[in-house]
């Protein structure tokens, strides 16, 4: 019997006056990988921001239940502490914040929220180095400022490193393959595949089938005009790759 991790029911959300999510339903169980594909402007990234509680993305009706709790009543940081992780399409550069101290602060904030003892510098560095090595992430870069001067691939690998360290239960990967070369996609995919287990779940937002041949989804959804218009298995992704979105009817 699969266990529900995330349940979105008839979700409506808007940015300013503009409705961007228009009655979206989605259930994700533990151990599953879901992919969301869809044309530009369909609301894919907006969905990821609504899930992580970004300012300006307002839920007007519907519900989101995460691990049995009302996700919408939690702040962004509480959602992260509860085990939700958003790997951003364009990870933000933060000049002045050193990558390693950011990772330490993040991990310890989450540990603290779970009443676990915070890691001291020595133990943290050991852990960070071990995980970075697995992902082929250069140790030198951890001394640099968060995402500053990182290449596209390095930014996404740094997001993956965060997943490896924070071990969230639910990860949204928003175009983790954009701006990344073939070799880096391989490293990132391997990293994600190694992190997959029967307790967590992934929601992959992508434009390309290629990523989905490496991180194989259990379900593929097509999101258009703010709602899911079709759900299928991995073969749906290859259909889209061949013939685009035009053959799927879009309600207006």
């Amino acid at each position: 019997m699969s266990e529900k991790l995330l349940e979105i029911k008839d979700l409506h959300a808007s940015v300013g006056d503009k409705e961007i999510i228009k009655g979206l339903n989605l259930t994700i169980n533990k151990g599953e990988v879901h992919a969301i594909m869809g044309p530009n402007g369909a609301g894919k990234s907006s969905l990821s921001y609504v899930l992580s509680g970004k300012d300006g993305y307002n839920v007007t009706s519907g519900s989101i239940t995460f691990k049995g709790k009302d996700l919408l009543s939690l702040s962004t940081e509480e959602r992260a502490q509860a085990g939700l992780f958003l790997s951003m399409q364009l990870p933000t550069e933060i000049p002045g914040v050193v990558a390693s101290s950011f990772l330490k602060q993040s991990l310890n904030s989450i540990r603290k929220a779970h009443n676990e003892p915070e890691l001291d510098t020595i133990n943290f560095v050991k852990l960070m180095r071990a995980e970075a090595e697995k992902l082929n992430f250069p140790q030198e870069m951890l001394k640099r400022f968060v995402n500053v001067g990182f290449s596209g691939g390095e930014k996404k690998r740094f997001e993956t490193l965060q997943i490896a360290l924070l071990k969230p239960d639910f990860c949204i990967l928003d175009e983790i393959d954009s701006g990344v070369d073939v070799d880096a996609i391989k490293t990132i995919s391997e990293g994600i595949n190694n992190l997959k287990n029967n307790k967590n779940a992934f929601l992959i937002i992508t434009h390309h089938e290629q990523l989905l041949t490496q991180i194989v989804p259990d379900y593929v959804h097509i999101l258009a005009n703010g709602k899911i218009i079709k759900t299928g298995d991995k073969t749906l992704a290859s259909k889209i790759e061949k013939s685009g979105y035009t053959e799927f009817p879009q309600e207006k």
Partner: protein
Amino acid sequence: MTLPLIKSVDLFLNNKPSVFALRETAKKALQKTGFPTLKTETWKYTNITPILQSNFDINTEESSCGHDCCCHEREATSDFPFIEIRFCRGKLHVEEYNTPKGLSVTPLPLALYEDDYKRYLFNSFDLEKHPFAALNGIYLEQGICITVEKNTKITSPVLIKYNQNHCENLQTHLHNLIVMEKGSQLDLIEEIVSDDGFSHLTNIVNELYLKADARLNHYKIQKESSCAHHLSLNAVKTQTNSSYMQFYFSNGAKISRQETFINLEQQGAKAEIYSAYKVKKDCLSDITTNINHLIKETFSNQYAKAVLQEKSAATFQGKIHIAPYAVKTAGTQLHKALYLNNDAQLNCKPELEIYADDVKCSHGASCGEIDKEQLFYLNSRGINQEKAKQMLINAHLEEIFSFIPNEKIKNYFLSKNIFS
């Protein structure tokens, strides 16, 4: 004309004509100009009336402090040996300095006694243009003279620590001379500390002479009480291909002003000033610079970052003067401020006086609030609002650390949590 802050005190060597004459020169200069007012162009944003009204005393105690004083704590570690010079309540801790070959450290009273360094005193700035440096000169007594010999690279930094604790109601004047002989190199760190609650005036004048090819990296950490007053001058003279780098980190004071006056006198001379400062409560922080490009092919760069909290005020006045014929020079200036409160006030006054063609000069200023995208990124990683904001405030300031050329010194400053 009677002026505030001038007390009749019995200074060391007042009976020695050469020393007496120096103090008299300073006194005459101040009597001529008087203290600045808000009508004085370079002081229009910094109201010093509270300092003039304070009637601060002079510390007339002979020795510096007792043995249980906190200034006995040393910063040096076996991993990072500093050469430490310590002042407490404005008096030098007389001790044996374990100086490497090529570095000499002489207490100012001794230098005055022996008439050493005389040609360097009051020679790097105009007493009539720097009234508080003139005030400092009237009390010329305490300070340190450092010389680095020709072609000598001193690997251990020299740390001058000023412990201003228990200086309640005192004015402290220190005068240091730094002479960098041809091709010499030194890292000099100044650290001024006092705990919250103490009200005093700290006035430090550094005269810095860089001969040809000399390199001086000068760091200053000012971390005094939010009731303290701090007025200081760094006056720098640089010769051919020498390089002066200044890093100023300030956590504010009731009124603080760091003034830097640099003469780039010979070709290839270079000066860089990096500042990071945080102002809180109703404190006022003033950074004033004046860089004179007196000859062709000289370079200067200034980058300052500020954080303004509560009802604080900050002033950044940066003057770049390029003399006629000083062609192929470059002078740049940038100030970035982070506002955390609508009641905070920032005055930015760039002044570019360019009398030569074929020069590259620029200035810029920006101010803004905490970046929402950065805040979201940190929050989305489980870091709470307050902590995330703190991280971004420190990040804004700590960008300046990335320009520190010495990794060990950079880590030392980072470990000190200057801005917390």
